[in-house]
């Protein structure tokens, strides 16, 4: 049936073996499966590889293109990096679930039709929930359930859209569309929920920080970036995405600035970074789509690196709040240096992968004359440095001396961090390595003296702003309300209110019915009862004569009725 090995299936098979095997064999498969998958990914030629008919629909489980291979490649690379980071610390079921989760992302990448697309999409939802649950705490359990509800809901909306498109257009191809009718809007909303777009961005910062230190590394990589790929494939140039993207960019910065939990800061900055990509997809030019794809690739690496750095700190100290941490550079130098490299990369410092990819998006905005978008993105670049670039390393590794003297990261965690750090710098110094795999020919020079100087000014003066405004940024033991308040509190209150009302109505009814029954019983008892003082009418012993008389009367009445 297939001329090539389906990469997603390779990965699922590997994930199952991880569960079945023990010891070194398991390690071999944790590290080997992503590499084997990577090989399979690069065997896939352009175009539809195989078609299967299912209920009159042509199913195209694998369709190759440079864009699809690029995303699948980074997903497989990330599965390898995450596996290396986690294999000695994570439980086997977390590793196994994470691999199937990655397989879902790779499956979506190659899905040529919407049905395949949907199946892999749901596979991701299910197994990412398992990864959240692997946090193992009551908080993780509850957050996992909220996460699952959100994603299953998103899946239902997506499915409604897919059914509509299938029926109304007769085609289930994954192809560019515009959100101009109910069906396509449903698909867009379904995809955007996974991209953590407003108004439901909160699912991300709610769930990811509850997972295990290793789990959040996997979680940060796949769901949102698969959504970005889906947007590139389905909605390139959809104008509404520009506004949504800009909102996400600013939302991420503001919430990250307010946050105290280290991984939640990083979670908000995922929303921020995905906002850049969503905005780029909305711009929709070749430069913009290249930028979105390149930025997604680079982002997965440095965001995972940041989560690895945070994860190593949490693994070693057990703390995850800025207020508890500080001064860790003394005993965790590798974690600190790698964290700083990740922080510089996310901020888009020259010579890091963030610079060579994010500036493409700004360039696309400039080329299209989008003044507002351009300046918002520039402000956001400054803001990223503020909330992730400095805030994260500063509060974790410097700030004050928390008195904590943990050991540095275990060797495998350190190796994964060094690997990703190297990639962040490699793509920053030699951007052509990435550019040649982008979907469109790249006509972009990242390193011009003027551009470098502009961004250096922008970023360094943001740094100045950070240190001057430090008193305003004193961490507090607080969380920030978000739209999830609506379903965690408001919905809860409404449900409780309904419950109380129904219950009180029920109780009132019960009393009334009870009273009525009581009254009835009493009245009936009056007639049937053989009471103490005087028996009821029907309970009395009647004399024969009276009975005969009554019978005579009744018979007369009967005869009369009969005759009349």
């Amino acid at each position, binding site marked *: 049936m297939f001329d090539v090995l389906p990469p997603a299936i390779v990965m699922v098979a590997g994930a199952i073996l991880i569960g079945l095997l023990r010891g070194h064999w398991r390690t071999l498969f944790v590290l080997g499966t992503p590499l084997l998958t990577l090989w399979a990914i690069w065997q896939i030629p352009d175009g539809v590889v195989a078609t299967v008919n299912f209920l009159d629909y042509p199913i195209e489980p694998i369709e190759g293109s440079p864009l699809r291979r690029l995303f699948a490649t980074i997903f497989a690379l990330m599965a390898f990096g995450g596996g290396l980071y986690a294999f000695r610390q994570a439980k086997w079921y977390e590793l196994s679930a994470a691999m199937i989760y990655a397989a879902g992302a790779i499956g979506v990448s190659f899905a040529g039709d919407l049905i395949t697309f949907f199946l892999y999409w749901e596979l991701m939802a299910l197994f990412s929930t398992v990864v959240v649950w692997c946090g193992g705490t*009551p*908080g993780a*359990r*509850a957050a996992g*359930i*909220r996460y699952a509800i959100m994603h299953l809901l998103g899946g239902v909306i997506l499915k409604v859209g897919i059914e509509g498109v299938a029926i109304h257009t007769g085609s289930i191809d994954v192809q560019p569309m515009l959100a101009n009718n109910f069906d396509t809007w449903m698909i867009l909303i379904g995809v955007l929920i996974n991209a953590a777009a407003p108004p439901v961005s909160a699912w991300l910062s709610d769930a990811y920080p509850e997972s295990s230190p290793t789990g959040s590394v996997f979680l940060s990589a796949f769901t949102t970036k698969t959504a970005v790929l889906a947007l590139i494939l389905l909605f390139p140039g959809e104008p509404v995405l520009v506004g949504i993207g800009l909102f996400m960019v*600013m939302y991420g*910065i*503001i*919430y990250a*600035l*307010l946050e*105290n939990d280290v991984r939640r800061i990083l979670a908000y900055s995922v929303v921020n970074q995905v906002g850049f990509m969503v905005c780029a997809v909305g711009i929709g030019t070749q430069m913009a789509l290249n930028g979105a794809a390149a930025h997604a690739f680079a982002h997965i690496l440095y965001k995972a690196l940041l989560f690895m750095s945070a994860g190593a700190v949490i693994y070693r100290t057990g703390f995850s709040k800025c207020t508890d941490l500080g*001064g860790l*550079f*003394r005993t965790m130098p590798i974690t600190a240096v790698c964290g700083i490299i990740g922080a510089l990369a996310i901020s888009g410092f020259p010579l890091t992968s963030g610079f060579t990819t994010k500036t493409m998006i700004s360039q696309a905005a*400039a080329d299209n004359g989008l*003044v507002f978008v*351009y*300046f918002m993105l*520039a*402000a956001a670049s*400054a*803001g990223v440095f*503020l909330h992730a670039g400095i805030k994260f390393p500063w509060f974790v590794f*410097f700030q004050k*001396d928390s008195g904590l*003297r943990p050991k540095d990261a275990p060797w495998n965690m350190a190796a994964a961090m060094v690997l990703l750090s190297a990639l962040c710098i490699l793509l920053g110094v030699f951007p052509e390595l990435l550019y040649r795999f982008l979907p469109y020919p790249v006509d972009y020079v990242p390193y*011009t*003296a*003027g*551009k470098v*100087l*502009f*961004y*250096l*000014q*922008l*970023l*360094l*003066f*943001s*740094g*100045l*702003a*950070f240190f001057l*405004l430090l008193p*305003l*940024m004193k961490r*507090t*033991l*607080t*969380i*920030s*309300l*978000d739209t999830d308040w609506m379903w*965690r*509190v408001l919905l809860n209150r409404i449900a409780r209110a309904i419950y109380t009302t129904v219950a009180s109505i029920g109780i009132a009814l019960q009393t009334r019915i009870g009273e009525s029954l009581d009254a009835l019983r009493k009245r009936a008892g009056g007639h049937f009862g053989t009471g103490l003082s005087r028996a009821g009418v029907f309970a009395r012993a009647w004399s024969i004569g009276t009975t005969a008389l009554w019978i005579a009367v009744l018979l007369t009445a009967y005869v009369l009725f009969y005759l009349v």
Partner: protein
Amino acid sequence: MNDEKSHWLTRPATIRKLWWGFSVVLALTVAAQFFIYVKGYFGVDGWFGFGAVFGFFSCLAMVLVAKALGVVLKRNEDYYPAGDDDV
């Protein structure tokens, strides 16, 4: 423990030096614009020191907005009951 407390990076003298170094770098990035042409896509962004001013003030604005929103949005960290009741 004692020499850990006075880690060279945390000494006031070092921090003072770092501030000096940082200030020099900041001044240099602005001064470099005398020699390096920054292409402005929309006019203003090519002005002298625009990146510096824009970076600083957008950060100031974002911190203040966050601070203001924080008044409304911040809650105690145990606002949501942790665990099984809260789904």
